[in-house]
């Protein structure tokens, strides 16, 4: 599909179909500027590896997300985990509180979010990818399996386990 005559035109059509979704997925995790770079790098890497794409093994979308996930991992490795979390949470708006008696409640909510963000950042890469590809990317288990090269059943059980553990962590942090 991506080789032979007219391959470049078909590739442009693939870009137009999938780049927007990928951009949003990446921007939510790494910001708009990084998303632009990673989208371009994802498609450049896909073009370079187009001979390796096997339609029977999964959709083009899965293939592209698989590449993007690897590039995003590389990007994240370049940033210290703590820096990443504080960067993300500094983006959460915290307006001057008009009701001082509710301020404590808001601080609690923020603490819970910080705890959850830290727990997600601390997940093994494979676990985090399954969670975020589902929640932010909207991919189903089969697509995620194809993207990450793992069986669909593994995706489902991993997702179940990750969500259960993170919810438990959030409850603990909230009560402590």
């Amino acid at each position, binding site marked *: 599909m991506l080789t032979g005559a007219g391959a470049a035109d078909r590739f442009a059509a693939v870009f137009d179909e999938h780049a927007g979704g990928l951009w949003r997925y990446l921007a939510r995790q790494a910001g*708009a500027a990084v998303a632009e770079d990673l989208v371009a790098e994802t498609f*450049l890497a896909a073009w370079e590896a187009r001979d390796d794409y096997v339609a029977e093994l999964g959709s083009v979308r899965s293939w592209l997300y698989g590449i993007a996930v690897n590039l995003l991992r590389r990007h994240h490795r370049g940033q210290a985990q703590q820096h990443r979390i504080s960067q993300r949470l500094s983006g*959460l708006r915290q307006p001057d509180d008009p009701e001082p008696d509710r301020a404590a409640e808001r601080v609690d909510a923020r603490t*819970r*979010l910080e705890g959850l*963000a830290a727990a*997600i950042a601390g997940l093994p890469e494979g676990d985090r990818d399954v969670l975020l590809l589902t929640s932010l990317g909207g991919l189903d288990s089969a697509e995620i399996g194809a993207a990450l090269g793992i069986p669909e059943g593994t995706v489902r059980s991993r997702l179940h386990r990750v*969500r259960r553990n993170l919810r438990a962590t959030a409850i603990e942090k909230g009560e402590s």
Partner: protein
Amino acid sequence: MTDDDFDSALRTIYAEVPLDPRSLARARSRVLETVTPVVVTPRKQRWWPRLSAAAAAAAVVAVLAATALHRDGSPPAGAMVEVAQTLNAAADAEIRTVDVTVPPGQFRYIATHALSLENHQPSDGRLYIIRTGSRAEVWAPADRKAEWLRRETDTGERVWLIGTAESGREAGIEESVRPPTELRARCGDWYEDPCDRDADWQSPNDDFLADLPRDPRELYDRLRDDSDGKGNDPDQEVLVYAADALRSGLLPADLRAALYRALALLPGLIITERTATLDGRTGTAYGIAAAGTIQEIVINPATGDFIGERKRLSAPMDGMRPGTLIESTSVRYGISPAAGAPPAR
């Protein structure tokens, strides 16, 4: 924490970012630039991922650092030797290159991606400077006297160097992406007497190129004579003239080789960056710093490929900082079966 609370927390931590169509357009043009054209010469082509913004910034610093070492006074011992050696290596590579002939009825495809500055001074009286991107594609027929096609496309790339997009829009600066334009003319003479005009370094034709000397010293003297009195700096202008001709994509391999050897004779030419990346391709940047700018050409010394050229500020200008990229062009070649058609893979 319920499932719903958990999902809601995720949506807060990973807040939606509204899709920025310009960002997507820039990514698109970066990608399509690489996938569309094909090289003419039978060498193995390598595609490099484009530098990240941080790496590009580092590259700017490297250019300035390298230049600072050499700008005043004569280049350090050895620098000129290395310039000559690497340019001669590029020339040797060109000598080994056999340009693929364009089959009858087909077209040489030459695509240039350019960034240049646009100045605006709208009714608010403030100066706005925008770096904009464009692509020019030329289809030159195997029979050069036949009809050529030139298509110019606005890539939508816009970087506001002075002023912000927001205030510029309020002041009435038109930002819409210009529709593509096409020109057709015999001999590629778009604006004047087709097949009967005086050619020059800026728009060479086959006769002009055939008449240029192949002896490096003679070619160097010819470059000096023709560029005499032009531009801001005599040495820099020689480099500009060479880049003008190389950019046309019409120079045969023997002339490219002679031109590289001629440039090795240029005083003040230094290697400004050993690994310079232009539109995803890597080469060595040779430059001359003068009159507040660094003019560079980027060549792959191993293959002799001319990758492009760029111009950066070496001193502040109109509020822009040293290191700011103010012009760049990258060139790709291919062979296309029909005018207007993308090059065959």
